[in-house]
């Protein structure tokens, strides 16, 4: 009989602890964090926590390196960010409120002006259609390129 009472008491204790844990979990879920799509690939170029605080510094440093020194390494480049983080629905990082950049920036209420100039979608290099001039003996493109310049 006593053993049954002990068992019941243990169960009650376990139940109370489970209830507290749920309450704690509920509190965390109450903070309405922005829902972000995971980027392509296994992980970001740096630790996620580091990127949350410092992505703007990395981007600013890299933009000056690219602009003034012509260093176009893919790591820390805005183009690299867009290629990984473009949303599946819109194909963009800032077309809708759910897209990677705009979701967090709307949450933090920080205005973004990157996309006034930069493309929000990953893009292919432009394809140049070769204009044809009537009657011109046009060399094939490859030999023309080789002969024209370095």
């Amino acid at each position: 009989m006593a053993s049954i009472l002990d068992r019941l008491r243990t169960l009650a204790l376990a139940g109370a602890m489970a209830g507290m844990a749920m309450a704690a979990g509920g509190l965390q879920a109450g903070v309405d964090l922005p829902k972000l799509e995971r980027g392509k690939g296994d992980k970001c170029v740096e630790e996620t926590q580091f990127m949350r605080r410092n992505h703007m510094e990395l981007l600013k440093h890299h933009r000056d390196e690219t602009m003034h020194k012509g260093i176009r390494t893919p790591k820390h480049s805005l183009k690299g960010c867009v290629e990984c983080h473009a949303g599946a629905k819109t194909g963009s990082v800032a077309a809708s409120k759910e897209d990677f950049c705009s979701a967090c920036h709307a949450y933090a209420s920080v205005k973004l002006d990157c996309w006034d100039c930069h493309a929000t979608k990953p893009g292919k290099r432009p394809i140049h259609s070769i204009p044809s001039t009537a009657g011109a003996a046009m060399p094939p493109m490859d030999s023309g390129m080789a002969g024209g310049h370095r």
Partner: protein
Amino acid sequence: MSEQMNHPQSDQDQADRRNFLKASAAAAGLTVAPGVLLYGIAHSRPEDQAVSDKVRWGMLIDTTKCAADCNACVTACNTENALEGRTGPQDSQWIRKVSIKNLQTGAEHHLPMPCQHCEHPPCVDVCPTGASFKRADGIVLVDRHICIGCRYCMMACPYKARSFVHEPLTEQNPEVPRGKGCVESCTFCVQRVDRDETPACVEACTADGHMAMLFGDLNDPESEIAKALKGQRTTEIRADLRLNTGVRYQGI
């Protein structure tokens, strides 16, 4: 008095330092030389290395080969840089086809006019924020992050090479950011040059069979453009301004 006493001492220091620098410079020269030689042959730069002033990019345009009815360079520029291709007074034009005629003789010439990428660019002189700058390899650019859109550079440029973006833009080329409120101009397709390619206009002109445009390193005596400039009479437009332009013309 004590200062006078110190002078011989500091001169001696200076001399020592100078000798040390000379020696280290010589050593650096030796170690750098193979790298420089390799650069000269392969024409490529490691992607994490900054551009250097050992290179100066330039263009030679042969007006006798430039056809009157051809617009290939302009079209290619528009495609590469995602320009709208309109030619109104407020539209961006990075390269223009210009026709000139000698009224006395009737001789006509046609030529493309991009940014002339001056050695002493007036646009850089007048820029109040430092947004307009010349890269070490001679390419003149606008840093849109710093540009405030005052348009002094547009007034200063003798070649009318720069445009101002008046309206918000979309659908930019990821490698060519453009937007409202900034001045812009021909970049020699810097994103392509950094990949060891030639500007889009030059590629189009060559692919179209005209071969009127030649692009290369003016500082490399072995480059085609340097040989052409050495062997033939070429012209700088507004040479009187002594800007030492990177774009040279033949046949005008």
